[in-house]
């Protein structure tokens, strides 16, 4: 019963599969079995948020899920944000323009957490953004530019919709 299990799922729009022990953490499965190393493990106890991915359309911390729980699920990771021709997602572009990353280690988790919040509230105030991104720890930026970037990215996303 601790024997390897098969996992079939959709990742960044593509069908993928793998096989691993039930105890293998989802973050490790994404990074090793799927070869998508953009999602990072910063703490392995669900606090820092660097491992945040979209799980069936909602942000979740992949270091405290088992890979087997993702069988049949749809995942979106940082690698799936830009368009296929390489054009950056408006939020990635906003992070770039506002210097919202330094070492880049928390950035994938930060992008996903920000985009997740915008699904619930596309027109956030600065305070709402601040609270939303407090789900992810950043040690480099002091958060100030991230807040600016999320505000700017949200505006671009809204404008694109209308």
């Amino acid at each position, binding site marked *: 019963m601790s024997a390897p299990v098969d996992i079939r799922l959709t990742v960044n729009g593509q069908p993928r599969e793998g096989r691993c022990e039930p*105890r293998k953490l989802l973050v490790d499965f994404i990074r090793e079995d799927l070869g998508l190393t953009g999602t*990072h493990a910063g703490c392995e*106890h669900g606090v820092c948020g660097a491992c945040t991915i979209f799980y069936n359309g909602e942000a979740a911390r992949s270091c405290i899920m088992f890979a087997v729980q993702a069988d049949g699920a749809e995942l979106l990771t940082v690698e799936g944000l830009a368009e296929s021709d390489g054009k950056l997602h408006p939020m990635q572009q906003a*992070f770039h323009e506002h210097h919202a990353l330094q070492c880049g280690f928390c*950035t994938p988790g930060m992008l996903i957490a920000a985009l997740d919040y915008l699904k619930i509230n596309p027109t956030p105030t600065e305070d709402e*953004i601040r609270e939303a991104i407090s789900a992810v720890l*950043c040690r480099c*930026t*002091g958060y*100030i530019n991230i807040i600016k970037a999320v505000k700017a990215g949200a505006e671009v996303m809204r404008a694109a919709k209308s």
Partner: protein
Amino acid sequence: MSETGGLVGRSLLRREDRRLLTGAGQFIADLELPRMLHVAFVRSQLAHARIRSVDLSRAAAAPGVALALSGADLLRLLPPVPDTQLSLPSKWRSFVQHEFRNPQQPLLAHDKVRHVGEAVAVIVAEDRYRAEDGAALATVELETLPAVVDAEAALAANASIIHDELETNLLGAFSVAKGNAGFALEQAPHRLQRRFYHHRYAAMPIECRGVAALYDPRTDSVTIWSATQVVHWVRREAAAILGLPEARVRCLALDVGGGFGVKGHVYPEDLLIPFLARRLGRPVRWLEDRHEHLLCSAHSRDQLHEVEIGFDNDGRILALKDEYIVDCGAWNPIGAGVPYNTAAHLCGPYKIDHLTASCRTAATNKVPNSAYRGAGRPEAVFAMERIIDLVAAKLGLEPAEVRLRNMIRADEMPYRAGIPYRDGEPIVYDSGDYPGALQQALQAIGGVDAFRRRQGEARQRGRYLGLGIGFYVEGTGVGPFEGATVRIDPSGKVYIATGACPQGQGMETIFAQIVADAWKVSPDDVVVSLADTAAIPMGFGTVASRSTVTASAAIHRASERVREKAFTIAANVLECAPADLELRDGGVGVVGVPGAAVSLARLAQHARPGWDHARPSGVNAGLEETHYWEPPTVTWSYAAHAVIVDVDVETGHVAIDKYVIAHDCGVVVNPLLVEGQIAGGTAQGIGGILLEEIAYDADGQLLTGSLADYLVPTADDIPEMRMLHQHSPSPLNPLGVKGVGEGGAVAPPAAIANAICDALSPFGVEFNTTPITPERIRQAVRLNQPH
């Protein structure tokens, strides 16, 4: 060389961003090597104990385990670790009275364990899961010894000794002085004495450490990838341990997820992993997890100061005496570097004619204490900025006023402070306007008078607002050296390599800007190689706010020589004198003659050895120079931090109402990146005073072993920051730049502590130890009723 203009000074967006934003960065955990093995450690559960036995038989037999080694095994297999600690130059040693004892940490503990988490055995397996399974099967017999968890207790007569052969826990001591502080204190009209404790906290980058190594039997060489700030230092020690020439050992860092100093020295794992890779004939990698990071990387601060200040009725400081103890932990990888920084930065921006600073470094059964953003300066600034506020309170003066009365003025620059820096050179503040910066900050925060009115009104309504100042000066760009190679690539692009090791500072962009300006090329035509011993033979690394300063100077000098040579060859080709030439548009051309030019690509070709080259006789081949810049001494950045806090006296919660920083780091290469450094550092300083704490219990057990306990500030905890900039160029390097990496973290503890004390002045409370937690505030308020 060209003056700064063009790109230096512009907020260019970073070339690093694209890969980091799209998940295409490559951190140590992302490295894939065929047949790579993975490492877990067996770690001590006790803080201080003799190792009686380590039984790895079950571990070695566990599924997937390739190797299990104990400290005793390693003693037979490896020479002792060489003592290549950052040593202080002989010039310093001749000025400063000192004693040091430097026990070298073995790669695995074999006789004793000296802190909880110290590694006693290593397990190598097919994956980390099974390595941890193996580690869980190790049996370690330890004989408990009394744990020492307090620096003063460590130095007491009957203390349990951590390094038996030393017969003392005093790992180091030094004393530095100017004038006669003892006498001046006796003569002073007023004296104040206080104890200040700056607690233990840590860098806590979001990426932990990691080392991978690959042995190549064909060339008998080793490649080491390490998430480190000091690739050349790692390479040097690894070569010594492995018995290989440095030419056969390469160390490089990939993308590094934050360092802040904790990745700034050589760790046992940096040496053990390459050894294992060679022994096993397969690549080996260790990734530190967060629990390990808290248990056994490095912590910082943890200094206890006894300060005495003598002053007159006008608040002019006459003398300062500071005796301080550094809780060094079980080992001392950085030596006197951090403790001496404290002494060197104690006087800060103030004129103090009589000073004595004496330090003792005590071993305890805790994780080693090494550099973390500020590296000894926050502790000095906390003591000085707190006591100057106390001087003000004693005399009924505004803290800002007392500071202004004591500050070195702009027209007094350069100013000899009277004691040496840790490079042995006399401290000379080179340029700057300290009073100007302070006044700028206070004005930007709304002015002191207006604040006092606001504060008074708030108190009527039972609200407690406080204004605090923290001012620091910072020696940056320290030697001994940094190197740069500049080469004109056959493509015409300008290639530079330097020993600087980035962890998020944006160095690829900064150096591209500097080189693009110097060579009149597009930054896209600059190729930058960092953090790789294969790219440049000697390097120092990125610590101590030094890389922009030292690398840019090395790049500048090397570029000068290459340019000279390029002009000589171009002159030959264009049949003119070198003096008639200028750099333009990615090439070299005759001044005033638009058509007469030759591209850098062609010049590279002309410079080649062999047939049909275009070099004048006597000029050897190639367009490449390596220069090692040895800074004359450090150059001095500074900043005033001013903060307004709102203290809830019922719960002790501190909200930051306004935060202003007036900052000077000389010529600014990229304003956007400079502000990023200031913001990040300030956030860490805020975390340090209000939230972060490494706590050990009386038995040396770590109480804060996860990020649920060690409280890194979230976005909710960090206020908006208003930043103002002055630019006092440095006279000490070609670009006029000063370092900026650490400063932000230096002032906030002092500024916020001062603000809290100001807010609670009706209660007459003082906070001279950190962190300042809500419970401590509540306790202080409860014990002192308003008067």
